[in-house]
């Protein structure tokens, strides 16, 4: 069982760039993005998209689909920002804010100007920070991230849990999809009631299998001399790219400069 985003993280063109560099870069851009003017945020979105799609060669379709997730969340929340309601007699208070509106009984529903500005700002920020997140997750395998976290002092227990959970996620995902396929082959999800029934069987089976795996892994790790901590070694073959470093540093300087002009 594979997850497409995880596969891309491990096969993309920037996988050889040291993860420390990528993280330092993205954190700098993220901090700028969180504080900057919406125009700068749009520039950041475009620039990081060039990194992700252009340099790392992440398929445009995949990247676009991810950005659509952001857009969907935004779409779902804008009605709350755009549409306001107040008692009819207080209309005068919001004169400046109201684009147009309708009266419904004693309520006045209107399209809020400030809400529009706010949702615009929200979208710009969300796109810029999401572009940062996507750059990291699409170009850096989780194992490489974990190694950086280890170096900056993540508690040992969390290192162990993250490593093992990552491995087990793929085992259990494979189980879940196998069981689901088998259920479908016997018409398992043909109605709402059958779906719920089938899903409850699947979850029970998944839990049972998790426990079975626990017993087996307890044995197989003991057989290899489990010493109380899950400690493993991994090699590092990264090469530093001058060209990428230069672009990253120059770009950040330009962004800060641009922001101070606005």
């Amino acid at each position, binding site marked *: 069982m594979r*997850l497409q985003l995880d596969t891309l993280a491990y096969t993309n063109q920037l996988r050889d760039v040291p993860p420390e560099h990528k993280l330092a870069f993205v954190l700098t851009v993220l901090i700028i993005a*969180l*504080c900057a003017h919406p125009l700068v945020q749009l520039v950041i979105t475009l620039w990081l998209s060039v990194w992700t799609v252009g340099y790392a060669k992440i398929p445009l379709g995949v990247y676009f689909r*991810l950005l659509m997730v*952001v857009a*969907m*969340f*935004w*779409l*779902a929340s804008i*009605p*709350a*920002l755009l549409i306001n*309601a*107040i008692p009819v007699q207080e209309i005068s*208070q*919001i004169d400046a*804010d109201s684009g*147009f509106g*309708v009266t419904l009984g004693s309520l006045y529903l209107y399209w809020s100007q400030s*809400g529009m500005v706010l949702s615009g700002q*929200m979208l710009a*920020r*969300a796109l810029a*920070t*999401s572009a940062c*997140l*996507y750059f990291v*997750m699409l170009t850096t395998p*989780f194992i490489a*991230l974990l190694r950086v976290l280890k170096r900056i002092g993540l*508690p040992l*227990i969390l290192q*162990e*849990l993250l490593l*093992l*959970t990552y491995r*087990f*996620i793929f085992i*259990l*995902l494979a*189980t*879940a999809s196998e069981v689901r396929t088998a259920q479908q082959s016997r018409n398992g*999800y043909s109605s*709402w009631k059958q779906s*719920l029934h089938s*899903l*409850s069987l*699947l*979850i*029970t089976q*998944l*839990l049972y299998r*998790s*426990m079975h795996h*626990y017993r087996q892994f*307890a044995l197989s*790790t003991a057989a290899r001399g489990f010493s109380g*901590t*899950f400690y493993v070694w991994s090699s590092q073959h990264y090469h530093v790219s001058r060209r990428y470093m230069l672009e990253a540093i120059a770009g950040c300087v330009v962004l800060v400069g641009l922001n101070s002009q606005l």
Partner: protein
Amino acid sequence: MRHQRTIDLALMASLSFYLVVAPVPVSAMHIAEGFLPVQWAIFWWIVAVPFFLLGLRSLVQVTRQNPELKLLLSLAGAFTFVLSALKLPSVTGSCSHPTGTGLGAILFGPSVMTVLGSIVLLFQALLLAHGGLTTLGANLFSMAVVGPFTAYFIYHLAIRSGNQKAAIFLASALANLLTYVVTAAQLALAFPSVTGGFMASFLKFASIFALTQIPLALSEGLLTVLVWNWLQTYNREELRTLKLMRQGES
């Protein structure tokens, strides 16, 4: 004037249309990356971290006595991740994902679930692009703190009535529901209405989510009852093993 009326009608129509067919995101309860202003993002991190550390402390204690349990905890985390990635059929016909916090809290205990929930949220952000990193603090608070603790307390409150099925149903359905209420509140705090402030904004966000979340909460409640029945009847040994994880809880 007549012109204004046409616009109004068009607006109303499009709003109703939007509310009916709006493709509410698959991960409606995760606040997506960048949706909170920086000060609120930091605020929720500060609120969530102590709960996380408390959970972590009890994990460290349990695993010191029995290091093998790290395997069990990680499997429980992976289980929760996979659970939250399954498609849950809703009574209205739309599909979403169960939160799994109710089942998780009852099986693994709430403070363990806080840590596991956080790990799951991190993986959801990195492997599925659900939620985000700056908003992780806020999501952590709603999904990994409020959800599990609500489920746990409601379960123990309702179990006194003697009806375990009802207790399981209430615990998981309300945990799901409360998670989304907290999310709505988090958004409302960050974006209060110009008029009416927090309350007005909260009602607006809550009603948007309510459309999909109430049926989903009911589905998750029913599902959890079904799962619990199977486990109780046929997997008692597994349930006993799971108790090992909860020695650190007081």
